[in-house]
């Protein structure tokens, strides 16, 4: 596969060139650190931050979208067009999350056209992490700070230059578009990359992840959930900043016979999440709702998709207003599993 380097002084030019025929999303500075945002001016792109405060799932799975509009008994389809899109500087955990979302939105052969129209037009250039963020644990959940899953190309920050490696045909085609700005990677560059990768992986603190699914199932009635549930405020922050949470609600918004059907993010932490039309709610307590969040990620998803739906980005940890830490929860669950 194609391996090249780009002098960092040319990054803006590189992005301007690639952004000519597509929408460009990249991290930019924000009051909360950095945010993944559509950029018209590449000089705003900031590659020095670690994880953006919000994940990039918004690009392929927007917080809300109109599925169709209606007028009395007439439904009007929304045109499913999407523009070519480049996600530049996504961290490997976020790129991997896209691969997990792909599995949900194509599950059992049922394709979600609203998701796929954007996803199919999306090219991801991931930027490997040299140092972990404050709550990172990607390597404990099957990822890596230099991981390639979900990305079309992977970049390394080597100080004066970016090293770029194409991972897919789409990534290779993209990098070739800017070949006037790049140089072929030397053996020295490749060695530097290997060293950076080893350094990055070394810095991460391992978190024990409970992998015994039968034991996790047993934890359903464990006291730990009551303990955690009483702290949980029941907001949707963890789910909304999570790159793999994908639950949504569908609502009709009508005004005098004219309306639209809207799909919007939802969170299992909300008390209304499972409220039935009858008034019955099978998850009556915050403990049950918090349990759902953790078990969905670490028990039901492994059962359904063969992998836990957590990429270890740590956003739920840094943003939880109640100071809940998923890593500590997993550790407690693991020790519970050993006892039972």
């Amino acid at each position: 596969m194609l391996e090249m380097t780009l002098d960092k002084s040319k990054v803006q030019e590189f992005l301007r060139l690639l952004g000519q025929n597509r929408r460009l999303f990249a991290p930019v500075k924000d009051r909360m650190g950095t945010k993944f945002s559509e950029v018209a001016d590449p000089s705003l792109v900031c590659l020095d931050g670690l994880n953006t405060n919000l994940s990039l799932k918004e690009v392929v799975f927007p917080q809300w979208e109109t599925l169709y509009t209606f007028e009395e008994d007439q439904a009007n389809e929304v045109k499913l067009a999407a523009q070519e899109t480049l996600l530049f500087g996504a961290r490997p955990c976020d790129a991997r999350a896209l691969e997990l979302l792909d599995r949900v939105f194509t599950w059992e052969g049922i394709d979600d056209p609203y998701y796929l129209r954007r996803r199919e037009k999306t090219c991801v250039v991931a930027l490997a992490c040299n140092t972990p963020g404050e709550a990172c644990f990607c390597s404990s959940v099957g990822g890596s700070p230099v991981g390639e899953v979900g990305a079309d190309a992977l970049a390394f920050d080597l100080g004066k230059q970016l090293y770029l490696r194409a991972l897919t045909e789409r990534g290779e085609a993209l990098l070739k578009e800017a070949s006037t700005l790049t140089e072929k990677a030397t053996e020295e560059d490749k060695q530097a990359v290997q060293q950076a990768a080893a350094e990055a992986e070394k810095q991460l603190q391992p978190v024990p992840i409970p992998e015994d699914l039968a034991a996790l199932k047993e934890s359903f009635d464990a006291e730990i959930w009551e303990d955690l549930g009483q702290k949980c405020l029941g907001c949707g922050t963890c789910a909304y900043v999570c790159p793999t949470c994908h639950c949504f609600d569908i609502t009709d918004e009508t005004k005098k016979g004219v309306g639209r059907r809207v799909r919007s993010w939802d969170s299992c932490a909300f008390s209304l999440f499972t409220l039935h039309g009858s008034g019955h709610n099978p998850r009556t307590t915050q403990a049950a709702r918090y349990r759902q969040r953790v078990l969905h990620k670490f028990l039901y998803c492994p059962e359904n998709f063969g992998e836990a739906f957590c990429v270890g980005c740590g956003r739920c940890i840094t943003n939880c207003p109640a100071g809940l830490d998923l890593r500590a929860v997993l550790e407690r669950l693991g020790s519970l599993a050993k006892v039972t």
Partner: protein
Amino acid sequence: MNQVEETLRQEVAKLLEDGTIDVFVGHEAASLPLKTSPCFVRSPKEVDRLVWNRICTSNLATYLPQLFKRPVGLKGEWTPPKVGVVAKGCDSRSIVGLIKEKQIPRDRLFIIGVGCEGMIDRHSVGRALGVVGLADAKVDGNSVQVIGTDGREKRIDIADVLAASCRECQHREAVLSNLTVGEAPSSAPEVSHYANVAEFESKSPQERWEHWVGELSRCIRCYACRQACPNCYCEECFAEETAPKWLGVTTDLSDVFVFHLGRAFHQAGRCVDCGACVAACPQGIDLRLLNQKINKDVEELFEAQVSLSLEEAEALSSFRMEDDQSFMTEP
């Protein structure tokens, strides 16, 4: 361990031992630096979990109403628990408000008041660090030594990263308590009350509109502000009502504005400016400005501040002949 923390633990152990309380709500260390987590202590053996420091930001009053709710599905007799709680000035005012609004029973509450010099705002520390994360931090007197994830160290004056509401706080001691621990706070507020509102009021309507468009376009509708707020205990929030449906589910500005303005109006005459909504917001939106504007109006119109005592009636839930009536129009 500081003196307040030590005394607090001793007192809580006694209260649990002699059966004065069944559960104590306090703060415990969270895994990330400069973060604490609410903690529910049910046995004297657990009191060492309790901490008291400059990062006990949460308003613990938020956690009280749920403790007095009969568990769903429980059959037979149920006695509500006796609950202890540690309260800063703002927590105690929220507790007063909740008692008056009949969400928690005074006679089953044991409040330990602690004087507060103001809490560190983690978002401000983050902004001081820039785009990198916070790897470690140590509070040392009036400053905090922080280490970024890039390895760089920095000493920050706590005064520079105090929560905005703490800077203006006029009630640094609990207004209602069964017991107080520690000494009265020494420092007086350094910023004049409603300074932020006065500055905002001086702007043109266009500027004010642009300010809120900028702020509220950041909202992701996670409801962290609402959930962290002790006043937002409604079983069903207007934001989620379906009949009538007051607002849609999107992050369109019209939906977001209706939510935040609606919530602000529901806080009128009730908000104690604890800053929990600001601390909880993952997007760093300064919602406080909205609530403070209404607080200022209430104070100017009715010469009253919110929830200072159990005895005094709240401005917006009582009527006096001399109340300002200039807003009334002739039919």
